[in-house]
């Protein structure tokens, strides 16, 4: 029973942190000063981080 409670509690913490993070507004003019991170480590073209060669 204890492992289920611990895992369940951690899942709840994760869900609440995710929701709180999504509800927190980004700073005004919050565009990133640096280039978008892209990855070319694999050939998975469906990956959202896949960059141009």
């Amino acid at each position: 029973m204890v492992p289920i409670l611990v895992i369940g509690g951690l899942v709840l913490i994760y869900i609440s942190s995710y929701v709180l993070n999504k509800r927190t507004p980004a700073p005004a003019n919050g565009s990133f000063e640096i280039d978008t991170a892209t990855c070319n480590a694999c050939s998975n073209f469906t990956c959202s981080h896949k960059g141009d060669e």
Partner: protein
Amino acid sequence: MSFTVFATAIISAMLINNVILMQFLGICPFLGVSKKSSSAIGMSAAVLFVMVIASAVTYTIYDLVLYEFDIAYISTIAFILVIASLVQFVEMVIKKYSKPLYKSLGIYLPLITTNCAILGVAEGNISGIWTSSMPYFEGLFLAVSTAVGTGLGFGLIIFAFSSIRERLDSSDVPKSWKGVPISLVVAGLMSLAFAGLVGII
């Protein structure tokens, strides 16, 4: 707990047991976010930040909850959830209170959730440092020291590698070797060089 212990843990984790070149963890950001030095610095700062906090939290959870209730076998899944939650909390706090930090680290924080170097350090702290007889704060100090050293080692290697890649981009490399192939050769040579540091402590 002394400065010697702190310095030894940092140098050992940074140079001798380097997380990328000796343990082969965090290879995806090492290859994927090392095209430019600015990206490498941002990523390594974010990794150091999260790694130190994650190490302290996971060590505490293991010592005070998982070991106490004899459920250490769920440590991996618990650590994954802790790290994922921590990244969300850190992003939220940075978003709310530090605009400059959010602008420089924000894009890398979600990537850290899937960085196995963070989980590797958390697991390594348990398998390598934690013992049932060790006082809590002594173990926590060692775990955090190791995390600082590992994060610095990650930053050192990814910055050095990105600098080399920037120079390689403007070098006369044969077409078939351009990009990832020559980068992998460089990574292998760097790994061999760092293997020479084994045994200095």
